[in-house]
């Protein structure tokens, strides 16, 4: 066999080069949108697309990335102009996938055109379907992080225990929404999260435990508030990616609006229920 196994990529002699222009386009777009979909910065996604394309033989490559789209155009070895676009519908944070794509693009840079297109595509597919931690562990850790945030903001042990319980329910709900095929609208998800948190925090406040409701609420909210999104928006604007910075700013504001509308509605509902109970002479 001519092919020599080395890591996951196979070296082939130059005359057996198998990367066509179409393959290169597919691979570069796939790598770039993986970075964007999993919480990478705009400049990182652009760099990844251009780096991969150049490593695989594009003469002149340019990428334009906003939070919802990856646009990529290049000139191939024969001098023809091409461009391609990939729409990004779902965004999350998965740092392991970013690290893997980074690793792949570095390896491509050093091996260059001698790689086999089929294998690179298999690696990209494997990265995009690589497993998360088990759901029960994620739910438990998210609850623990809510408890830690509550303690960090000056809550006591009872507040932390309440935040743990509410954070657990919140993450369970979010994981259940993830299972819905096609996904639920992001705004609706934040609306429901805000309502859930405020109703549960009010419920905990009714018990004779003397819980600091506001601290519990903000500690639990830290799982879903768009703080990182806001900071990333300003970072994009500072580094000159004005379009994607403005889009991320709007995204952060919309998520916060959903959470606050949800929580205000939640407060109104729990107040109304209390009044009904009082009118009925139960509480």
């Amino acid at each position, binding site marked *: 066999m001519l092919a020599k196994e080395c890591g996951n990529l196979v070296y082939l002699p130059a005359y057996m080069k198998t990367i066509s222009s179409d393959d290169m386009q597919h691979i570069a777009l796939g790598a770039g949108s993986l970075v964007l979909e999993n919480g990478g910065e705009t400049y990182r996604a652009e760099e990844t697309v251009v780096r991969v394309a150049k490593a695989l033989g594009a003469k002149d490559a340019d990428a334009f990335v906003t939070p919802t789209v990856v646009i990529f155009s290049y000139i191939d070895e024969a001098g023809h102009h091409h461009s391609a676009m990939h729409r990004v519908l779902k965004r999350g944070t998965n740092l392991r996938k970013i690290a893997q794509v980074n690793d792949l693009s570095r390896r491509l840079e050093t091996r260059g055109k001698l790689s086999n297109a089929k294998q690179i595509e298999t690696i990209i597919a494997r990265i995009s379907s690589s497993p998360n931690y088990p759901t029960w562990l994620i739910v438990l850790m998210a609850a623990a992080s809510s408890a830690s945030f509550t303690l960090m903001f000056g809550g006591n042990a009872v507040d932390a225990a309440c935040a743990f319980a509410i954070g657990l329910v919140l993450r369970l709900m979010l994981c259940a929404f993830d299972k819905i095929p096609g996904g639920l609208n992001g705004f609706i998800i934040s609306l429901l999260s805000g309502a859930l948190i405020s109703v549960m925090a009010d419920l905990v406040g009714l018990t004779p435990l003397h819980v600091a409701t506001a601290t519990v609420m903000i500690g639990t909210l830290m799982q879903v*508030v768009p703080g990182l999104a806001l900071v990333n*928006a300003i970072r994009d604007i500072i580094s000159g990616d004005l379009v994607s910075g403005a889009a991320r700013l709007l995204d952060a504001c919309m998520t916060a609006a959903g959470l606050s509308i949800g929580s205000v509605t939640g407060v109104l509902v729990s107040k109304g229920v209390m009044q009904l109970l009082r009118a009925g002479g139960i509480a």
Partner: protein
Amino acid sequence: MTELTAGGVLLAALWSFGASAFSAFYFNTGKTDILWGGLIGSAGWVLYTIVVVKTGSQAQGYLAGSFAVALCSELLAVFTHNPATVFLLPGLLPLVPGGGIFYMMRSAVQGNLSDALHNGYTTLIAAGAIALGIALASSAARIATLLRRHILKGK
């Protein structure tokens, strides 16, 4: 916290370590990177607390904290061959003004415009200071890499 005590700082370090490390789990970070993310987040939050108590300025605290977080992430990125983002995002979590943007929108929804403006202003200042700290650190890292390459080539 209005006064610095050894116990208070130690507790702040502990809770912020927990907050960053546990959050790194649902960001699906690799197992050793979770530890680093927690340590960096803890360092950033402790620095923020100390600077805020000493100078009384929130913005300076955010700037110092995020600069430290970003610088540590860039250093770790060099040593572990991972992108800096893997350490930066969990490390920033204790600092980011998530509560501020929520309170801003909540005041706006409740029709309390002056509160909304006040919260929005402080949130924007905090986010700006944090982003500036990161930009400074990553530019410093880029210059250091260039210098290192230059020196190595010169030899």
